[in-house]
């Protein structure tokens, strides 16, 4: 465990330190302002609330690590959330097959993204913008409002807790982060994801399977989007056509705040996890500080700028 952490730390040391510092600072401010803020109850509350963002940013981190981006996640989450509740439609016996199907479909859509990216050579931003639009259109063809429903017990993913009040969903997300972090640091493919993002041309010359890695990474992003969709259905009891829309851009914030560079090759999912906690804690704290929602946006934007401009590398040489 500590080995994993220390490996992760060498990946993006400054990144993690920055987020950690911000987390601590926020926490201190919150605790200073409200005595209810730093309670176990509220911390567990923030932990629980981080789940959705955590799941979707986990996949996004992988695409960003390769120097890409997945702007289709919002639409994919929306479509799959609708399929989840629409196909289950309240029937307990449908839960398992539908979940399996939705996870598979998410992975497939992601793989298609990756396939298009390697086949056309078009920048991932454009490709996923396009596929995102297509998927959103399909979601709206499927329904304009909430569809179907799920059995009551389905909400355990989102609202269920272990003894002690530890959210089940958030703990699953945390576990996935640790697994993916372990994967990135300790498997061949994991290290090659970094290599591909670091220098695609060198990766080609080294004979690394760059195309396969890209397809895999976008497939993973699709998979985690599917998981996010399932989580949202659990939280909201039904899928809706715009339920994931906010995640498209929101999923990028924790990634970059956590020290993963949009240029690829640097960073890691532990930074993203901390970024997710930072965003969740920030939202929670702004609610505790009675800061009007208008200014909440202002603060969020400023935090992005603050965090991101710390990472900016010192310019070397020309230009």
């Amino acid at each position, binding site marked *: 465990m500590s080995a994993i952490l220390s490996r992760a730390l060498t990946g993006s040391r400054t990144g993690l330190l920055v987020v950690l510092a911000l987390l601590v600072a926020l926490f201190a401010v919150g605790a200073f302002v409200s005595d209810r803020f730093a309670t176990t109850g509220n911390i567990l509350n923030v932990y629980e609330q981080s789940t959705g963002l955590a799941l979707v940013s986990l996949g996004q981190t992988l695409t960003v690590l390769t120097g890409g981006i997945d702007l289709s996640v919002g639409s994919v989450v929306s479509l799959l959330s609708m399929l989840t509740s629409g196909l289950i439609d309240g029937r307990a016996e449908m839960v398992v097959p539908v979940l399996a199907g939705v996870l598979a479909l998410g992975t497939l859509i992601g793989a298609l993204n990756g396939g298009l990216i390697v086949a056309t050579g078009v920048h991932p931003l454009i490709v996923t913008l396009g596929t995102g639009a297509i998927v959103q259109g399909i979601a709206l063809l499927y329904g304009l409002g909430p569809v179907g429903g799920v059995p009551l017990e389905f909400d355990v993913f989102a609202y269920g807790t272990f003894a002690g009040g530890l959210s089940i969903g958030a703990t699953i997300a945390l576990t996935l982060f640790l697994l993916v972090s372990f994967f990135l640091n*300790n*498997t061949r493919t994991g*290290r090659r994801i*970094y290599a591909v993002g670091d*220098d695609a041309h060198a990766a*080609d*010359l*080294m*004979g690394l399977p760059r195309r396969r890695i890209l397809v895999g990474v976008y497939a993973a992003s699709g998979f985690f989007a599917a998981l996010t969709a399932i989580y949202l259905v659990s939280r909201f009891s039904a899928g809706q056509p715009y339920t994931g829309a906010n995640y498209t851009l929101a999923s990028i914030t924790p990634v970059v705040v956590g020290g993963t560079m949009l240029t690829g*090759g640097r960073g890691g999912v532990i930074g993203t996890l901390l970024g997710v906690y930072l965003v969740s804690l920030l939202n929670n704290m702004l609610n505790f500080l009675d800061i009007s929602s208008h200014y909440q946006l202002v603060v969020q934007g400023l935090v992005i700028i603050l965090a991101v401009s710390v990472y900016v590398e010192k310019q070397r040489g020309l230009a």
Partner: protein
Amino acid sequence: MLMLKGIAKGFPGVRALNDVDFEARSGEIHALVGENGAGKSTLTRVIAGVHQPDAGTITFDGQPTVWKGPGDAKRHGVHVIYQEFVLFPHLSVAENIFIGHERRNRLGLIDHRRTRADAKALLERFGIDIDPRSRVRDLSVADQQMVEIAKALIHDVKLLILDEPTAVISGREVDVLFERLRRLRDAGVAIVYISHRLEEIFALCDRVTVLKDGGFVASRPIGDVTRDQLIALMVGRNLAELFPTRRGPKTPGAVVVEARDIDVPGRVRGASIALRAGEITGLAGMVGAGRSELALALFGALKKTGGEVFVDGRPVDIGSPRRAIELGIGLVTEDRKGQGLAMLLDVAANVSASTLPEFTRSGLFDHRREATVADEAIASFRIACRGPGTPVAVMSGGNQQKVIVARWARTSTRLLILDEPTRGVDVGAKTEIYRIMQELADRGVAILMISSELPEIVGMSERVVVMREGVVTGELGPGEITEEAVVELATRRMAG
């Protein structure tokens, strides 16, 4: 081990290889030589499966072979140390060495400890003192090159190709490398060694093949050729022909630009140089000596932390290329594509780039005048293209270089700095560029030519300044300029 027959390979604008035959045998170090742009690297890439040849056959290990990609060739034991770095700057040294061949434990997971230990052992065998955990981007260029070399040697190599491996290393590191290569040869590995340093060829190799302008010239046992013969094979004519003799005024003019005690952190220490009107000054030294940095500092493109620059004897503050251009200084950079040209734009736009205000009439851009000027440049520099509207991306390297020179020749340039002006440029264009440099000098422009090619330095310069490790080690005036003298200064250890 490897046999190539009739290999051809073209790129947009260039025929890089044309009907080339080549053979590499086990237990032999085979030198591949030729001028810049002769096609050596391209041949390497064909052998390594990076490029598919347009024509010709590859026979490897007795089997006719078509590589599916670099990975395929690698799996068959073909390893290349490319001319450019193939490193992942943000991965550790150890990881870079083993990427693609990761050290794994029984669970199939990466064995970080073994990766580090093996890397350390490997580096130690090279006598390089690098922490395998450090990120590659934090290493010096020479250390990066050593990592590149070490990387190739972890494999079960059958054929090892090294494309100018010594370009950025020197002295002891070269010795270590040679010693390794000899041992590999003795172990039955086929080695192809590419270098511009002829003394290396003679010291290390068993056989030499010469390429010229993309074509096969000759292949000989090293004992069968002399240095002069080899040069003649490579160049295909007398050096005297290559470097046109000055006809213009020989008397150097006044000092136009003088730099005193220039410091660039980590790159240049206390360098001084004086450049005179109408004189071609060569700036020589090994790669990495800091010549480019000195030039960039003179041009205001790199921050200097110490020293002074004088133009016409008056101290000036050159804080940016903009200011340098105002003062009449121009720079042809060493990296044509990366720094010199806007590749998507056409010839006219690239020529006019540094003097845009000249083409502005009452706020509007005068395209007609620009075209006229570009036409003149095309004519006087003999730039081969379809006209001012030709995108530079489709042009050959030599013509691209002429476009950049034309850009600076047009302005009220008083000092023109050319950094490796003939790198990757074919012979014809090379002579052209030499001619242009001389014409400019005849017009009274001070020329500073940075070059790593000794013949060029010796053949073109009227004065040579030599640098080593950021320090100016000496200056040679007319009559003193010989290859030996330059090499002596370029490798001289300075006290302190």
